[in-house]
């Protein structure tokens, strides 16, 4: 098949962005089509993220910036698709780029146009709680940072054209119709929030103090309407009593959506915690049916919310809300645990709204010729979770099912993994590789510094006396050339800088303008094009940290700008060229574990043409999936597994080592050397560029309920076996299932995630075969998240009885003369009840293989979490990466999860690893730590400090060594060194010392 080496991604939220970054780093040209004017999606709107309470903007923004400036990613904003033709490998896509009325090639994002625009309109980014202008940018950190004109609101006064010193405003700029030729398409259009207006009993839209959770998210945000104060909209008071209502629009088949929106329980807990953190006066109450904290470390978060923050949970659904018209307080009516109807007054109510499919889902389905599921989301199959019904078109994020950020990121990488497999033959064909002139040798030459000072239109020049700063800069040591520019970042100035470098023989360049966070790479690129090493560059931030923040004190701002320039010159006098380290890449992959995860991962690599090894400790492949016959979603696991194993065995470049364990791991990213040991003691040494940990999990064998001695007490796995082998005894009339056995307790505080679905699956299977058998499921929370909710309902409809118990009062089993009796204190019943049963089924969950994990982790230099599962580099945004480069994880090794989710992680790991494997060589940053062996005492403090395992002790020489391939250049080691032996290139002690000194002059 002839395939095209480019990809189109629909939607620039966190999913689309992740897929774009993965694929562009794997040798493909990527187009990201975003319908709004900037990427970032909903995540950019969030305040904090659970369960780590990381600031959403802080963690997403670097990814957005990276996507914005990647040479092989083209962001097509404000655009829509008209038509898609062709097939997998070769699609033709017609699209319209709606005019921004501002020339994106010229706009510098300075924002003067927005300030001067006289038209105020509602700001959708801030959920209509703030006003924006008709000439606007979605949010201040937007990528791309381009202003645009909202033509619907614009009155055409012409002011912005007048004030734009760059001349970017083009009112007559027309829509542009273009065509793209791509090999594959990823759909990542995200979701829409459920609109609670039609649910009249809640009074949303009628009562000012009833808000949605996404509105509340903006209220919490420091950049939101109330600048981080938690206030209620009616009068700006702090809502002392704050109620959250779960499942608004979800799990509500009669009035709204039947499915569970998966994320609301957690984001509500987070919003309640953050509200309390921001404003200690706030006392949140959460009304919920179940607490669905099924993800990694989620239950711990809920426990903390309750114990540390005093968040009150009430198990009830509020039936309606009334407003006291005088105080604007809200009176909530609900049923208490005892079944009494009661009223309670709150100052403010947050509706935890669910996730709808995107508004234009039907249109998307039509254009791309894909199927939607019964709820209007993109149809996928549990065994093929990123494939749409059309070959070559993949899906990720909430468009396929409601999901949270890490799962979106996983699915995004998984979709990218599939694209990698499909388009591998065309890899590298459409990307631009840049050729640079040879570097000018500056060694031994005295510094000749050029300083370029930016007016940034009027952003700097309107406050700071730029000509004054220019004159001042000329007096500084070794400054040979100074000029000022209207916009130093504009394309023509880049040409100018290059010419000046040659003409003036400059060998150090300083730009005094905006922030290096966004602009340093641009200028570094410019000087590199002129033949200077990238690191012969310094920046002085005289806009974001000077003119913008001292607008009313121009003289002091000018003084400060001079200080900043002097400090930059001080450092520039002592900067030297740095080398980026280049490492070779072994184009082979090694996977530890031959379960469903490991096998899929293996196929992912092998089908791209990489030689692949799978190491399995058992004889048999398939891992935990061997325990399962069928999915809750009614698909046969046995058939799937058989087909998968056959496919793996037929793959020539994929080699399986079973009955084998990892004995030793040497080397680092690109150059691993793994020694494996067979059961019989024979050894094998394998080379690989990347390693994927897919070591799986094991079924917990319970000590509870006399399981080990009583054969009438079995696990769900055993029950499933009995059902499928038709061994379920006729005599059994009453079956009691007990959930959370061995999970969510003090010792193992996590949720095993799959047990609710397993219990319900088995219950339905039994009811279908033997409708007369009584089944009672004793549970703490039913966690049938997402579309699994349907089966929970199905089970209840089939007559399965669900009774809840509290953690403190688990059901008791009493055995007397062969009669088993369960005693239960259910809050639903009020009093203790007892039930006789012939079979007790324990939902026992998943445990990490502790011993082997503890052995493997140090070999790979990767961490485990408190529960014994492997710990990823970042819970939210790097869910299948380890901090140690070149090592990835997937499947149950990460945490308990379904087969569908394990498959997604497999392909995600494939994609993440492919960003390395696809390269001939990998380049590290020049700013890395280095060691002066003369000073190093070998104390090892730096070794412990390093989060990336880049520093190690050379046992022979007894000094520390930096692995330049692994060093990320943070400098923590340097700050810890007692003898100044370890220092950071580009930020050396001397350089920083000089900068400080320059300030005091």
């Amino acid at each position, binding site marked *: 098949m002839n395939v095209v080496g480019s990809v189109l991604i629909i939607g620039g939220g966190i999913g689309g962005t992740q897929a774009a970054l993965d694929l562009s780093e794997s040798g493909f040209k990527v187009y990201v089509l975003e319908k709004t004017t900037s990427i970032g999606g909903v995540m950019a709107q969030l305040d904090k993220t659970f369960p780590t309470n990381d600031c959403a903007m802080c963690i997403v923004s670097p990814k957005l910036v990276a996507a914005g400036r990647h040479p092989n990613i083209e962001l097509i904003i404000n655009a829509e698709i008209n038509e898609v033709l062709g097939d997998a490998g070769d699609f033709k896509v017609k699209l319209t780029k709606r005019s921004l009325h501002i020339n994106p090639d010229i706009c510098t994002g300075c924002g003067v146009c927005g300030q*001067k625009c*006289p038209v105020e309109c509602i700001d959708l980014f801030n959920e209509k709680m703030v006003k924006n202008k008709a000439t606007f940018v979605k949010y201040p950190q937007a990528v791309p940072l381009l202003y645009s004109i909202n033509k619907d609101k614009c*009155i055409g*006064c012409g002011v912005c054209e007048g004030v734009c010193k760059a001349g970017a405003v083009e009112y007559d700029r027309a829509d542009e119709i273009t065509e793209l030729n791509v090999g594959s398409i990823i759909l990542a259009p995200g979701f829409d929030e459920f609109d609670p207006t039609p649910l009249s009993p809640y009074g949303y839209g009628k009562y000012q103090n009833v808000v949605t959770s996404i509105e509340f998210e903006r209220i919490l945000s420091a950049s939101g309407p109330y600048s981080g*104060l938690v206030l209620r*909209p*009616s009068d700006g008071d702090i809502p002392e009593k704050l109620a959250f209502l779960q499942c608004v629009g979800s799990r509500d088949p009669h009035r709204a959506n039947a499915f569970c929106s998966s994320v609301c329980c957690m984001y509500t807990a987070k919003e309640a915690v953050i509200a309390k953190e921001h404003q200690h006066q706030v006392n949140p109450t959460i009304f919920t049916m179940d607490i669905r904290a099924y993800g990694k470390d989620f239950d711990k978060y809920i426990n903390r919310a309750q114990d540390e923050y005093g968040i009150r949970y009430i198990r009830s659904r509020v039936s309606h809300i009334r407003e006291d018209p005088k105080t604007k307080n809200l009176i909530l009516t609900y049923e208490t645990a005892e079944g009494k109807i009661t009223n309670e007054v709150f100052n403010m109510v947050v509706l935890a709204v669910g996730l709808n499919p995107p508004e234009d889902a039907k249109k998307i389905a039509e254009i791309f010729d894909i199927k939607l599921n019964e709820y209007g989301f993109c149809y996928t199959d549990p065994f093929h979770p990123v494939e749409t019904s059309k070959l070559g078109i993949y899906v990720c994020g909430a468009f396929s099912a409601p999901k949270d950020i890490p799962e979106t990121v996983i699915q995004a990488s998984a979709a990218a993994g599939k694209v990698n497999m499909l388009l591998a033959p065309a890899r590298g064909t459409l990307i631009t590789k840049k050729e640079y002139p040879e570097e000018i040798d500056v060694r031994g030459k005295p510094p000749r510094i050029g300083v370029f000072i930016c007016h940034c239109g009027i952003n700097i020049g309107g406050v700071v006396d730029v000509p004054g700063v220019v004159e001042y800069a000329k007096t500084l040591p070794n400054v040979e050339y100074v000029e000022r520019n209207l916009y130093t970042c504009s394309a023509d100035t880049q040409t100018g800088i290059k010419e000046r470098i040659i003409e003036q023989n400059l060998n150090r360049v300083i730009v005094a303008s905006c922030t290096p966070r966004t602009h340093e790479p641009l200028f570094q690129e410019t000087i590199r094009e002129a033949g200077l090493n990238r690191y012969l560059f310094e920046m002085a931030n005289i806009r974001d940290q000077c003119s913008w923040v001292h607008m009313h004190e121009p003289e002091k701002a000018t003084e400060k700008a001079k200080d900043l320039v002097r400090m930059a010159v001080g450092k520039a006098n002592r900067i030297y060229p740095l080398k980026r380290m280049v490492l070779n890449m072994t184009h082979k992959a090694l996977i530890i574990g031959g379960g469903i995860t490991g096998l899929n991962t293996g196929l992912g690599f092998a089908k791209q043409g990489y030689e692949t090894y799978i190491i399995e400790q058992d004889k048999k492949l398939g891992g935990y999936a061997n325990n399962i016959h069928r999915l809750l979603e009614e698909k046969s696991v046995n058939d799937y597994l058989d087909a998968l194993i056959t496919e793996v065995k037929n793959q020539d470049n994929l080699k399986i080592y079973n009955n084998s364990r990892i004995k030793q791991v040497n080397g680092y990213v690109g150059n691993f050397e793994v020694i494996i040991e067979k059961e019989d003691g024979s050894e094998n040494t394998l080379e690989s560029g990347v390693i994927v940990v897919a070591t799986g999990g094991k079924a917990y064998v319970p000590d509870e309920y006399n399981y080990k001695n009583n054969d009438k007490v079995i696990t769900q796995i055993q029950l499933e076996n009995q059902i499928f082998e038709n061994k379920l005894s006729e005599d059994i009339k009453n079956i009691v299932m007990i959930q959370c056995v061995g999970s969510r307790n003090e010792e193992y505080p996590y949720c095993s995630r799959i047990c609710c679905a397993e219990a319900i699956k088995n219950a339905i299977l039994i009811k279908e075969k033997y409708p007369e058998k009584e089944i009672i499921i004793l549970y703490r929370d039913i966690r049938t998240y997402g579309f699994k909710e349907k089966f929970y309902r199905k089970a209840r409809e089939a007559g399965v009885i669900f009774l809840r118990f509290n953690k403190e009062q688990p059901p008791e089993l009493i055995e007397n003369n062969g009669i088993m009796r369960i005693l239960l204190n259910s809050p639903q019943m009020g009093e203790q009840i007892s039930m006789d049963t012939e079979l007790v089924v324990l939902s026992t969950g998943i445990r990490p293989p502790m011993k082997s994990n503890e052995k493997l982790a140090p070999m790979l230099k990767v961490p485990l979490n408190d529960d014994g599962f492997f710990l990823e580099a970042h819970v939210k945004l790097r869910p299948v990466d380890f901090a140690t480069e070149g090592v990835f994880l997937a499947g149950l090794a990460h945490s308990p999860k379904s087969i569908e989710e394990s498959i997604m992680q497999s392909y995600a790991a494939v994609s993440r690893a492919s960003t390395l494997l696809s390269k001939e060589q990998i380049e590290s940053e020049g700013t890395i730590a280095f060691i002066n062996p003369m000073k190093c005492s070998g104390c090892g403090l730096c070794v412990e400090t390093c989060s990336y395992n880049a520093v190690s002790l050379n046992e022979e020489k007894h000094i520390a060594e930096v692995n330049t391939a692994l060093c990320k250049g943070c400098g923590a080691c340097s700050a810890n060194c007692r003898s100044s032996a370890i220092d950071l290139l580009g930020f050396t002690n001397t350089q920083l010392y000089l900068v400080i000194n320059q300030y005091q002059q």
Partner: protein
Amino acid sequence: MAFKPKIVGFLCNWCSYAGADLAGVSRIQYPPNIRIIRLMCSGRVEPFFVFEALKQGIDGIIIMGCHPGECHYMSGNYEAEIKFNFIKKMLNFINLSDRITLKWVSASEGIRFAKVVTEFTEFIKTLGKSPIQKSKNNSDLIFSLTAMQQSMNNYRMRVLMGRKRKITEQKNVYGEKVSIDEFEELENKAIIDEYNRERISLILKKHPLSVKNLASSLDLDEKSVLDYIVWLRSKGIVDVDKIQGLTPYYISIQED
């Protein structure tokens, strides 16, 4: 003692002022209450002047310019009309809008000039003394007038006043004509918002107040006050001063 209103007339040099002179030459009599301030064109009338005059306790203000189409400077009188309407809309908030008027008087209309002045003077007499003079407790009115004065000075109002004619009568930058209704909807909202924002930021210069305090002293609903506070905070004009109990108090952080 009979009420002798003080009236200020802003007259353009070329038509109205000449018209007034003609009245003089023709010996046409009119009440002596008016003091004429000569401007080169009615378009020169700054809203600021009008509010200043009112703050000083002037009882009536009359702006005169050339008839439509006859302005010596082509279109100054049209600009004057736009500004006049803005001013009038603002003065409506404090029931003073009757005290200003705009009239077209040509160089040949001595009689008309006298008539206009006479009628306006009579009308002002029926209104009585300016409330600023009438009561010693006029600080509220002065405060409102100051807020108006300042809000009319802001860039947004200037743009709306300055571009209204072009956009609604000719065409905007897209070559389209914006309907007057559409424009005025925006204009009216802007006038209310800018006035209220200015009032809030002025009052917060004196002492910190809560949303509820502000709402009751400015006679606004609390929700709108909060919206204004949100805006003013985002522009770095006001900030939270303290939180008392459950209520934040705000203060102006703008330097004079």
